[in-house]
């Protein structure tokens, strides 16, 4: 069994991402005029990078609770499929089990689902804990450093766009699903043209409906895929 020292090197790539991205979240949060200590608390209680970035603007603008819930649902909908490849690492019971599920972020998922990297449940739980620690520490650093940054530094929030771009490139690279890519762009175009005020909601609703209605592969192909 690997010790904490044995686990740490596995999480270094995530640390290199989470410290700076957490810090940018802290800076954006502080610059939006939100209460500073709620930034690290969000990283402790919510722990969802893209959603936390998105929430900065929504909370600062006083967006309604329903919109916040819908945004959470849409931004993190992809997480609904992550657990499928992590059954063997789910701790048996209690708090550890709940915390493991709580901590399945994009990066933690990719680390844990990569075959052979993490072999047992205790290791997996430690990876989850270390990764969240980086995110919380980064956030804390960002929110504390925010005051020292030059005012009028416009455009730091581009880090969010960049994060989504990287995730999009990796999705396209992994799946090579050009049909879905074109569908995403088409939904954006239609929603942007007809429903600019409900852009995200309208576009993602169209996507889900079209994909659910899409003709299925033949049953022979399905049996081959899933058994």
């Amino acid at each position, binding site marked *: 069994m690997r010790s904490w020292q044995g686990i740490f090197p596995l999480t270094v790539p995530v640390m290199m991402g989470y410290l700076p991205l957490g810090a940018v979240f802290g800076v954006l949060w502080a610059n939006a005029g939100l209460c500073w200590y709620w930034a690290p608390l969000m990283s402790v209680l919510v722990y969802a990078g893209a959603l936390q970035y998105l929430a900065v603007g929504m909370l600062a603008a006083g967006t309604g609770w329903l919109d916040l819930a819908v945004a959470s649902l849409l931004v*993190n909908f992809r997480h609904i*499929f992550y657990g499928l490849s992590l059954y063997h690492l789910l701790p048996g019971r209690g708090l550890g089990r709940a915390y493991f599920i709580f901590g399945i972020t994009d990066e933690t998922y990719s680390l844990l689902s990569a075959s052979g990297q993490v072999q047992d449940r205790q290791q997996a739980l430690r990876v989850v804990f270390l990764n969240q620690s980086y995110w919380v520490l980064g956030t804390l650093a960002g929110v504390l450093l925010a005051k020292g940054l030059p005012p009028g530094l416009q455009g730091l929030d581009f880090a969010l766009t*960049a994060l989504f771009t990287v995730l999009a490139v990796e999705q396209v690279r992994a799946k090579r699903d050009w049909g*879905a890519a074109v569908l*995403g762009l088409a939904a*954006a175009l239609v929603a*942007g043209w007809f429903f600019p005020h409900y852009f*995200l909601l309208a576009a993602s609703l169209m996507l889900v409906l079209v994909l659910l209605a899409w003709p299925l592969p033949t049953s022979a192909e399905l049996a081959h895929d899933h058994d």
Partner: protein
Amino acid sequence: MTTTDYLLAALIMGGVTFALRAFPFVARHLIAHHPRIQVLGQRLPVAMMLLLTLYAMGVQQWHSLAQGKAQIAAVLLVAGLQLWRRQAMLSILSGTFLYLALMNGWFGN
């Protein structure tokens, strides 16, 4: 915002996110054996990530492409670097630096 507002926001975002992450453990059979949900799981993330990228760029507020010049340039840099080197931090930091430079006139424009 009051303390209650912050707490409520955290509970909504955290609660929805936790429920999504817990779903496959609770509804294992539904997901594993429902072909349409399988298809959704395979194809939605690709489309959704592109959509979120466009949303974060703010395309829904553009009236012309010229409005998004800096966004487009920086996103192309990020995507290009990611395809070429496959190092997320390098892509993100380079793109953000380019965007900051364009927006704050560091290139003297």
